[in-house]
């Protein structure tokens, strides 16, 4: 055979408008997974302030919670975690071979549930913080 032409990752990222439900679910699951891993490191950093004493820990927490951006990030963290949990349940069903015909619907359902839970959590997370 003569020379051939490698088109590379032709369809992968530029064609996001043509992605199907299963593809979006996969992308969101990867993304939320990495976000949760990233959060774990900051979580450990905050918790380890307790090593220097109870006051240091309390001060750190209170200092962080008084910041508006931290409250917003907490809402984001909840959204990420809830989606990862719900889509994880969906993937569990897929692994068990249950309802594979409805995999796109279960993805949309997990998105909607995530949105509802996130919006419902906003008053709690934003309680008593000012800009």
């Amino acid at each position, binding site marked *: 055979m003569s020379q*051939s032409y490698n088109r590379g990752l032709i369809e992968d990222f530029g*064609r996001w408008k043509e992605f*199907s439900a299963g*593809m979006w679910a*996969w992308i969101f699951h990867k993304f939320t997974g990495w976000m949760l891993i990233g959060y774990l490191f900051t979580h450990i950093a905050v918790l380890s302030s307790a090593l220097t004493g109870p006051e240091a820990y309390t001060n750190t927490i209170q200092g962080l919670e008084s910041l508006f951006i931290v409250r917003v990030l907490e809402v984001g963290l909840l959204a990420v975690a809830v989606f990862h949990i719900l889509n994880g349940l969906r993937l569990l069903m*897929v692994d068990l*071979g249950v309802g*594979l015909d409805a*995999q796109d619907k279960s993805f949309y359902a997990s998105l909607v549930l995530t949105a509802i839970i996130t919006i419902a959590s906003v008053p709690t997370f934003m309680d008593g913080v000012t800009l």
Partner: protein
Amino acid sequence: MSTQQQEPEQPESQEAPEDPEMRGAESPVDEREKAGGDIDQTTADRSELEGETILIKVFRYDPEVADKQEPRFDEFHVPFEKGMTVLDAVMYARDNYDSSLTFRHSCRQAVCGSDAFFVNGKQRLGCKTQMADLEHPVRIEPLPHQEVVKDLVVDMDHFYDQMHTVEPYFQSEDTPDASDLEEQRQSRENREKVKMSTRCIWCGACMSSCNIAAGDNEYLGPAAINKAYRFAMDDREDADIKEHRLRILEQEHGVWRCQTQFSCTEVCPKDIPLTEHIQELKREAVKKNLKFW
């Protein structure tokens, strides 16, 4: 429908052909596709298309022709006729405009699996995709993630290698005695179980749609795993051969590479539930290795 022998000046004669064989657009399969929303794009109004020409943009590449060494898209205006498929359109373009336009095709009825193209951003079988169901202009490209040899022709060697890796043929040590003319029967239930997996036509659409296969050349890919499923689930094969098959599948680049994106299941022109079969083989592999003592 064949466009080869027709003159381009008589599109009217193609309306409502007498021969029932020619009524491609009215087949039950097409009706089911329309009802099931299989075609995910907004479709052009059919009545608008009658007697009109459709613009197709076809990927061109030829390493042996100087001005085609840099890939480009060529545009062709193809007269639309009822029941026209993507394959009909590129055949019309080849026969009437540019005889160097190259693509594989053979049976034109979704059996040979030669003409899988990347049509409007999705892997489809050219002979099974109605032009009327597509958004216009129609962009026709060779399958992604495979080397382009010329125009719409891609190098299928890697795909065939993966297919052969899973030993896609029936193997059994104790075949019945041929002198007795004894048949090797399969139960109806077992036949039902493997029925969908036997429909594979080796078109390579699933493999081309799979992101994991694109990034991992050693991954068997949906088609090969489906082929392995067809034999691993066949009751007529002995247990040790099934175990041998599972040993091939449970390797690092076997079933475990599948991350259930459902891309292959979406594009399969024969509606094989590929992800379901891969998941079932994953469970079989776990069951084989799980020991509680």
